[in-house]
């Protein structure tokens, strides 16, 4: 027979020991929390909370820091502080600088660490704990897709930041998610005419591709676009994402019969592979009786800074550039207003990641105001097929069938003699919207469904 030493006193002692330090001052006031019903995190009181989820640590921390600066600036402008930035040039005049629908805008931030898990955890805490009604940010497609799916399930709006993979508004598109940034297909479509005029139609391309989702969609897009010009794709070599030394991948390029090297790399990968390629003398090399060329489809100022002198003369594409209005005229109105208020606050020009995040925040606030509700379904309706101007990209359409923005794409190349560290690229061409527009059911984007908008609770 078991002898129980489990006395009442023993139980109470153990209980008291653990509970004592954690005892809760619970005050019963009887007043239940008054919550407006109908959708997740309906804002009560005189404030509304937005969640900015950016990589603060990890390989894209630089992009993340710049995105966060832009978010803070956008919130400032929405609340009527500062000089108003692009609010003055934005074609929709619904926003008046008194927050969103009279509610002062507050924000919470999180660290995605460029990992889907951490990003979803941070987004969850914004939704479940801080009551965020919109999540924005992200600096990589994997993270954007992961957080977009989460927001769809939770019933909040996701305004993605820097995400370039076709999948974000392709096979992984969601009704509650919106992308202002351009994508791999648009990069390729914008670059093709420029590549033709620079290097002609008789070229043989060798691709080095980062071995993950974004790399593949980028390679697929650029190969299709260049083959349409008459180029030949000699070989596509997949490189591991973690690779830091690309010498062994570069070495065979010269003997492969190719005369163009396409680097489908981003971030640190691109900086390293380009540096290796230049060290191997590819820029001065001759092949098939032509000058050897290097192409980097997706450019960013931060990568250009990392690659230093190697970047000179190398073409690539961008969503936006801070010199756009100065060089290409008032079609790109808004650019200077944004660059000025960003520059005044932080002392240097914004990157394209900052620009897209700023624009996304304004677009969300504007959609809420026009819809007259924070309900995600009302916001989705207000954003779908919304045409606007004055956010720095010229006339833009938020297409309803896949929630992708359609606007001009900037093709740039590295400057030969940059004057300062912020002015590393020159604008070669701005490819008009029509040239980069595609059908929603284009094979590279097929397979997904937008589904129904989800207001959550």
């Amino acid at each position, binding site marked *: 027979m078991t002898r129980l030493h489990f006395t009442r006193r023993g139980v109470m002692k153990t209980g008291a020991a653990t509970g004592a330090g954690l005892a809760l001052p*619970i005050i019963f006031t009887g007043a239940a929390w008054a919550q407006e019903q109908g959708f997740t995190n309906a804002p009560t009181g005189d404030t509304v909370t937005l969640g900015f989820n950016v990589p*603060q640590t990890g390989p894209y921390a630089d992009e993340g820091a710049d995105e966060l600066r832009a978010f803070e600036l956008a919130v400032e402008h929405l609340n009527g502080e500062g000089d108003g930035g692009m609010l003055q040039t934005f074609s929709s005049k619904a926003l008046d600088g008194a927050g969103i629908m009279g509610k002062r805008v507050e*924000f*919470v931030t999180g660290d995605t660490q460029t990992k*889907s898990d951490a990003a979803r*955890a941070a987004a*969850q805490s914004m939704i*479940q704990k801080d009551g965020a009604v919109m999540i924005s940010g992200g600096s990589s497609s994997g993270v954007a897709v992961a957080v977009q799916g989460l927001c769809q399930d939770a019933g909040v709006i996701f305004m993605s930041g820097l995400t370039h993979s076709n999948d974000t508004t392709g096979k992984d598109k969601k009704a509650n998610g919106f992308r202002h940034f351009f994508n791999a297909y648009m990069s390729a479509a914008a670059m093709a005419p420029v590549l033709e005029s620079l290097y002609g139609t008789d070229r043989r391309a060798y691709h080095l591709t980062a*071995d*993950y989702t974004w790399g593949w969609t980028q390679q697929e897009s650029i190969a299709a676009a260049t083959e349409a010009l008459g180029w030949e794709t000699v070989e596509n070599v997949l490189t591991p994402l973690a690779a830091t030394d690309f010498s062994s991948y570069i070495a065979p390029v010269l003997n492969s019969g190719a005369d163009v090297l396409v680097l489908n790399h981003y971030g640190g990968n691109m900086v390293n592979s380009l540096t290796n390629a230049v060290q191997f003398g590819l820029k001065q090399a001759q092949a098939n009786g032509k000058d050897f060329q290097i192409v980097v489809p997706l450019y960013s100022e931060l990568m250009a800074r990392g690659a230093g002198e190697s970047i000179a003369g190398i073409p690539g594409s961008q969503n936006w550039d801070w010199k756009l209005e100065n060089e290409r005229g008032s079609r790109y109105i808004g650019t200077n207003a944004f660059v000025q208020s960003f520059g005044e606050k932080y002392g240097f020009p914004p990157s394209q990641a900052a620009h897209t995040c700023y624009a996304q925040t304004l677009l969300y606030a504007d959609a809420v105001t026009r819809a007259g509700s924070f309900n995600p379904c009302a916001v989705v309706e207000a954003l779908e097929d919304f045409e606007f101007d004055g956010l720095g990209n010229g006339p833009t359409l938020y297409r309803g069938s896949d929630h992708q923005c359609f606007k001009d794409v900037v093709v740039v190349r590295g400057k030969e003699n940059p004057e300062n560290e912020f002015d590393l690229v020159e604008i070669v061409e701005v490819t008009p919207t029509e040239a980069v527009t595609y059908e929603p059911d284009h094979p590279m984007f097929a397979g997904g469904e937008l589904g129904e908008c989800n207001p959550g609770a």
Partner: protein
Amino acid sequence: MTDRTDYTPAAATPPSRRAARDTILGLTKQDFSLLLVVIALAMLAPFLLNPFPSNSAMAQFNAGYPDLMQRFVIFGIFAIGFNILFGLTGYLSFGHAAFLGVGSYSCVWMFKLLGYNVLPGILLSIVVSGLFALLIGYVSLRRSGIYFSILTLAFAQMSFALAYSVLSNPAFNLTNGETGLQVYTSDPQWLQGDGPRAPHLFGLAMRETETLSIGAWNFQFNAGYYLCAVIMVVCFYLSVRLFRSPFGMMLRAVKSNQQRLNYTGVNARPYTLAAFVISGMYAGLAGGLLSAMDPLAGAERMQWTASGEVVLMTILGGAGTLIGPVLGAGFIKYFENIFSKINESTLHAWFSFLPDGLEDALVAIVYPFVGKGWHLTLGLLFMLVVIFLPGGLVQGGNKMATIFRRDRKGGGVEDDAATQRQAGE
């Protein structure tokens, strides 16, 4: 607790052991108290983790929201499992994240093929990670010490690379690469029927949350959390039984001196392999639960940083102790999710009562340690713990307890393990 439930399992233990000591559910009184503490902590977590009113400035430090509570217990399970291997046998595996990842993928595949009921997914994740652990353990356990660690690390990184790119090519897409494996509307889901379109247990959706509002406090009770918490308690109970069993004693023998064991004619490998597989199954279960709470499995769950994290959790809490790993898991997850969210404007709001110059100075001093600097704070705390409390947080708890106890000589619940670990260092 009725006599009946106390009696039945106790009767199942061999008569010799029953006679030797008083047991409840096969546990000694001390262990049973510990189990009760764990049960109380797990069940009352929504209250314990939300000590501040939701509109106060301190609400920043509340951790009582479903997602984080789920992570606490799930990583608790992961760490308990890891502790069975590391705490008992001393074999330091640097590749345990591989099993976490395998478990996650198995569970999501069940969602894709069968439907959103979590049960098949969780069961499959345990089975698959067990088999995977058998394979890796069979090879890795041929070596010990640092060679074993490196072998497991190599296997885990290999799994990561496979999941990240090799197994996600369009022709054979097992893991969906960087984007992470998720459920699409086009998936077959043969047994889905009319169930909820989100992970559920026989109709009870995992994300179902009841909010209890008392004054300014909001307490969230989440179905998924309670499922995880119950499983964690069961896992904890099993690990206590294992620690106290003859098998556990044999594992301790492996840790203290494997050579002597070999000379006495005992082949240690079956024991270590069993421990490795059990520990792998715990990790797989944790992975399965992660997917069951949030149906997306990413490859970075397998990365070496994730393997390192569980090692940190176990050491921080106290390797070889029963409750230590759970505490360590909670500690690290708390920092990752709460401290990383404190940004510059939050700090300004806190110190706004000070004069401007002083406010800016204070913010400048504190800022590097919060927000993106949370790693730094965690690292400093980890160093402090390792230097001053080699037995982990459990040792710290015991020290505190001794100060307040009337009879200073009385031993705490986990004294043995904590001191043993100190000696082992």
